[in-house]
């Protein structure tokens, strides 16, 4: 017990979610709703406060974000938290960082806790970089003299240089994010909770962020790390826990948990086809995903000379401005090989779909992928989504295998890309 940094015991959290309203359609019901609506609004708003409800008797519109979750983390351990969207990962971090209280259960924490659920909290565009560093540091729980002490380090980490006294509204988005992350990275707490904030900045900056994170852990501080980038979880964490539907379903080394997660999420994908039950509440929904060969038949084994067609059947029930799709093809260890956004080749056709059913085909050209197993991940988002940013997120949907019977190196190829390169000799030029 003495070397535990975090002990989570049977923690549950209930949230209220929005329910679709039925609109009044007759004159008398309009009149009636004028009177009854304020009362209903009051009850709805009041029930946002879930400390009032009886957990044994949950009505419609409530969900268990966490359910009887238990977890122990030793001091100095780096624990990764993986799971699909809405599994409860962020809720867990919010409880650990005291942003919200659990509905039941209890949590023990040893030492000072710093949480990075988002970078740049409290940044004000009118203030200069210097002023925002102090303000943001104070918001994250640093004392003024602590920030003074690390100020130069923060500025050099962010590579802001002479712009430190410029209002941040004049910063490029890259500079803004670098400065925001730099402040957070210099937070000295015994326990650090990090939620997906490493996915910022350019590749070089991301590498330095990762270095900083390993440094933090090497100093013996405890790190909890939530990420969808499974490759990151594997490199950064020793242990990991898989959270599904608010429960910790699998705990082991990061390696094993990531493999287990990937396998479990693609278990039923061997047929190269996956169907989803119609969900009328979703404005846009993927109803079927198939992996097709060049003749249009479903298969899961391809040679590197074949094109791979990913076919999405979808249903748009209500127009969603700004809707776009995101797809990745990754290896079973989480390494992303191909990343595609429907914005990549303008116009973004997904945004101009009419209401109704559609079929979208995405072709991966021959010789793109190397031999081995590949997993397809899908996510549809809209910045104006009525239910938040996420519109439909089927995540890891189908998987397929590539083989290379044509080249000498064939299936022993270790590369992520399947491209073949020509070795082209030409007569040497004596003048050179």
């Amino acid at each position, binding site marked *: 017990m003495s070397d535990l940094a975090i002990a989570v015991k049977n923690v549950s959290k209930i949230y209220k979610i929005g329910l679709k309203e039925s609109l009044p359609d007759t004159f008398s019901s309009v009149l009636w709703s004028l009177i009854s609506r304020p009362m209903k609004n009051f009850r709805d708003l009041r029930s946002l406060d879930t400390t009032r409800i009886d957990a044994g008797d949950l009505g419609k519109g409530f969900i268990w974000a966490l359910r009887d979750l238990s977890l122990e983390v030793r001091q100095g351990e780096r624990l990764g938290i993986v799971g699909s969207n809405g599994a409860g990962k962020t809720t867990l971090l919010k*409880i650990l960082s005291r942003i919200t*209280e659990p*509905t039941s259960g209890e949590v023990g924490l*040893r030492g000072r806790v710093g949480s990075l*659920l988002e970078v740049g909290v409290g940044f004000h565009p009118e203030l200069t970089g210097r002023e925002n560093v102090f303000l943001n540091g*104070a918001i994250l*729980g640093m004392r003024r003299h602590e920030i003074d002490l690390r100020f130069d380090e923060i500025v050099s980490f962010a590579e802001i240089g002479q712009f430190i006294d410029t209002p941040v509204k004049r910063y490029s988005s890259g500079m803004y994010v670098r400065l925001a992350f730099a402040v957070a990275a210099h937070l*000295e707490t015994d326990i650090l909770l990090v939620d997906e904030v490493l996915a910022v900045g350019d590749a070089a900056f991301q590498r330095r962020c990762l270095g900083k994170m390993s440094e933090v852990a090497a100093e013996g501080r405890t790190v909890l790390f939530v990420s969808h980038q499974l490759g990151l979880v594997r490199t950064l964490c020793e242990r990991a826990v898989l959270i599904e539907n608010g429960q910790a379903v699998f705990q082991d080394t990061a390696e094993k948990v990531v493999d287990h997660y990937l396998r479990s999420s693609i278990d039923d994908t061997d047929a190269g086809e996956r169907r989803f039950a119609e969900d009328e509440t979703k404005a846009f929904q993927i109803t079927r995903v198939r992996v097709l060969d060049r003749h249009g038949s479903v298969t899961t084994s391809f040679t590197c000379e074949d094109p791979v067609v990913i076919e999405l059947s979808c249903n748009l029930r209500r127009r969603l401005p700004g809707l776009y799709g995101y797809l990745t093809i990754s290896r079973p260890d989480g390494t992303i090989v191909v990343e595609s956004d429907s914005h990549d080749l303008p116009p973004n056709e997904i945004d101009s779909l009419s209401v109704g059913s559609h079929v979208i085909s995405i072709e991966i050209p021959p010789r793109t992928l190397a031999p081995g197993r590949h997993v397809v991940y899908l996510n549809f988002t809209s910045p104006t989504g009525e239910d938040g940013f996420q519109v439909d997120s089927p995540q890891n949907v189908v998987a397929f295998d590539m083989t290379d019977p044509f080249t000498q190196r064939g299936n022993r190829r270790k590369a992520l890309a399947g491209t073949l390169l020509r070795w082209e000799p030409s007569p040497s030029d004596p003048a050179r």
Partner: protein
Amino acid sequence: MERSETAPVFRIIKPTRGWRNLDLRELLEYRDLFLFLVWRSLKVRYAQSILGVGWAILQPVAQMVVFTAIFGYLAGIPSEGVPFAVFTYTAILPWTLFSTSLAEATESLVAQAQMVSKVYFPRILLPLAAVVARLVDFGIAAIVLGGMLAWYGIRPTPAVAAVPLLVVVLLAFSAGAGMWLSALAIQYRDVKYAMNFMIQLFMYAAPVVYPVSLVPGELRSLYALNPLVGVVEGFRAGILGTGPLPWGWIAEGSVVAMTILVSGALYFRRKERVFADVI
């Protein structure tokens, strides 16, 4: 919060029920954040504006001009022997401090929704910082009053020493009301809309544009339940010498202000645990 050499304590988080104490020790730990929040509010308010801090003067002065024209000149409301302009400006000062700080405190949580839902800190700092930041505007607007006193040749009485105490009562009142309303506004946005016009109406419940002598005698102790009555009359008595300090009203108003302050802080603490969920 230095990292101590001894093993850090094991802190337990579990669902809390009912009333909670203020946890002053934690507030003290976060004093730097409090100062930064006050400073940010000051710094940001007049950023990229031409008049800048001049707005802190322009607004009460414009009110004074209109009130003097309408209530002093047209309606001929008496002003206890001093020019109506300085009579009403002496009241506009504390009134503006109250109304602006209350409005800002009420909106403080909703306006900082990102902070509330993404980071832990004692949320009570937000309404309190909003109130304290308005003290600076008050100080700037008070310079104009000094000029008016010199112009009209009015000498403050020794009772002017009571003014800081009156300001404390006023701050307690707006901080208390601000904590009540901000904790309600985070869940019910109606509070914000209601407040915009309620504050305008509430001005007539204080002697800003008329003297207390117009209020019927038997109603005055009821009237003085509004802490602004004792404060405004105290300002006039101390600064303009319109009479002895109205200690009875000041005491009455102070009791009300303190009750609102304490109950506001308790209510805020009780609701604080769900702010991140209901925002």
